[in-house]
């Protein structure tokens, strides 16, 4: 007989949804003066988040520096060999110097190496690809990143909206038939690996029936023309299957987190009070219940961006989508460390950026975050 400790919601560390102050010791007069200062100091929460993200960014830069240097197989040698094999001649002295500077010259003190690395990075220079030498990593990423961002952002947001909306519906009146049907179903959906579902979808929709293209981000026969509607339409058409996959595996977790949150919220006193006030049901559902239930889901959205990128990376491989994921897998197969590192750095920065954007919106949504604990 053991009693699992109940999960203590307040204890879940940096959960901004926790009540900002549990001490009643707040004085009337002081409060009046405070309303202004609180508006000024309102973004302490954001400041804290920003500090966190900066730490993560710095850590990832350090990790990025450290990884190739402490992993088996020496990327510098790897790259020199790669060039030797390809060109039949060893790289020039200057090249070797550059390669070693970036990927670790065993003869140079680590601190100096780090300094070189940082200065290069500060210039926005991610180095050159080993596989596609001398193409710069920046160039490869610049070409791939927009596609990935497009996939990741749209699919995540779409999945979030669908899941949250359905969850709010189901959680408002749980236990109904739709709930009994959709909730277990979405539980199953959420456990489908994105890459496998993608495979099935490609197989069925592209190979078996040919309704959708099985590869690429836009119609090859169209030029990339950012002013032509055809180009956008074809890009949209090509992204239907990836979106479909990502939304199916993505929406479910929002659905049941929203559903559960909604059920809990509907039981909150303030929703009861809203009911007692005789407000119209619509208003209670949207303004009182859903809005509050939404907050944790929103935090979740911010935190899920990193994970969303993972799913996108895998899905890109299946849909042969010319994004970061394809670039990364290609680089991995060729052991193109510079590209792998650059991509990772990009992915981290992108996910941190999303986090921060989501956090900023969150601050607008939840006034409590504008207060300090």
């Amino acid at each position: 007989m053991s009693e699992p400790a109940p999960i203590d919601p307040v204890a879940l560390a940096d959960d901004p949804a926790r009540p900002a102050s549990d001490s009643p010791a707040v004085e009337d007069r002081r409060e009046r003066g405070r309303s202004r200062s609180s508006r000024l100091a309102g973004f302490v929460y954001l400041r804290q988040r920003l500090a966190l993200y900066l730490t993560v960014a710095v850590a990832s830069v350090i990790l990025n520096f450290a990884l190739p240097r402490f992993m088996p197989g020496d990327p510098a040698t790897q790259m020199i060999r790669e060039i030797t094999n390809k060109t039949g001649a060893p790289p020039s002295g200057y090249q070797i110097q550059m390669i070693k500077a970036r990927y670790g010259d065993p003869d140079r003190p680590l601190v100096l190496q780090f300094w070189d690395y940082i200065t290069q990075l500060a210039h926005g220079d991610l180095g050159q690809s080993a596989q596609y030498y001398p193409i710069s990593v920046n160039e490869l990423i610049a070409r791939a990143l927009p596609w990935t961002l497009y996939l990741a952002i749209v699919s995540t947001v779409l999945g979030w909206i669908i899941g949250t909306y359905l969850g709010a519906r189901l959680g408002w009146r749980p236990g109904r038939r739709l709930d009994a049907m959709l909730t277990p179903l979405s539980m199953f959906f959420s456990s489908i690996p994105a890459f496998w579902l993608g495979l099935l979808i490609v197989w069925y929709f592209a190979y078996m029936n040919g309704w959708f293209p099985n590869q690429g981000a836009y119609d090859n026969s169209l030029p990339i023309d950012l002013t032509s509607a055809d180009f956008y339409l074809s890009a949209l058409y090509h992204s239907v299957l990836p979106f479909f996959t990502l939304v199916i595996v993505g929406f479910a977790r929002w659905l049941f987190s929203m559903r559960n949150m909604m059920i809990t919220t509907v039981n909150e006193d303030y929703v009861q009070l809203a009911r007692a006030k005789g407000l119209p049901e619509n208003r209670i559902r949207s303004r009182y219940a859903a809005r509050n239930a939404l907050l944790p889901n929103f935090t979740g959205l911010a935190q899920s961006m990193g994970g969303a990128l993972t799913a996108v990376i895998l899905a890109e491989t299946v849909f042969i989508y010319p994004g970061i994921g394809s670039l990364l897998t290609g680089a991995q197969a060729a052991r193109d460390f510079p590209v792998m590192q650059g991509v990772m750095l990009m992915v981290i920065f992108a996910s941190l950026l999303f986090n921060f954007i989501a956090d900023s919106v969150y601050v607008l949504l939840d006034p409590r975050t504008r207060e300090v604990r």
Partner: protein
Amino acid sequence: MVKRFLLIGKVQVGLAIIAVFTLMAIFGPWFSTTVLGTTPQQVDYLHLNGSPPGPGHWLGTTSQGQDVLSWMLHGTRTSMLVGFTSAVIGTFLTVVIGAWAGFSGGFVDRFLNGVILVFGNFPTFALLFIVAAAFQNANWLLVSIVIGGIEWAGGARQIRAQTMSLRGRDFTTALRTVGESRARIILVEVMPHLLGVISPMFLGLIAAGVNQQAALAFLGIGNPSEPSWGLMINWAMTQNALFRGLWWWFVPPGLALCLIGFATTMVNFGLDEITNPTLSSRRMKLMRIFLRDTARASRQKELVSS
């Protein structure tokens, strides 16, 4: 509590699925060789080029004429092995780091919490991918270590929060003020309280480990001589199974992955219902029945009175 937990239908289904796969992992290969009489490597020359499920090959053959079922059975072993091992490693790190941070407070906590946050905000798969890629051709153990070594941050955060709240709870303070030693408080008094968090976390890590391994294998990372679900999908995809319509080759491993994930979701859902009874679906059903019955009773009463 445990009993109540085990009585929930969702939990039972979830645990049953995991149990079935565990059994498959233990006895599958044996079953494959002795009962089916095949190994994944064995080629059936009569069924080259992938033949659909049928009497000889219950799940069909691959494009090399290898038995898909045998692959599945052997693959289950690798996948579950990775799942369990990475979960053990991950849970260990989770608990040690989380509890350590939660209990020590002060600088140690701030440092460890920073580490946890950094890892938690990392897109771990990218990291996993790159680290695993460095150990090309890594065997299952190495893959497990890498997965376990990277996938601990989320859990550690929870454990830390839990320990912190436990540390602040009166009963730990009370134990201190009766002169109990710190070590004993942590290990004997507090640990059992964490089990409620650790056990679902462990399950979740198994599923995560299995999935991560599959994703890595799908991308071609890992030892190609160890059959696993991800490797099956990878081979099916690279060997044109989609175009050739050999669906029996890539559907079963994916389904297995789904089921594992589904099982842990179910268990966690059940756990939610325990800790938050408003979510209990059983209760919702009872409520529906009750309301129906009272409505019927009152209607009858009205009939009688009128």
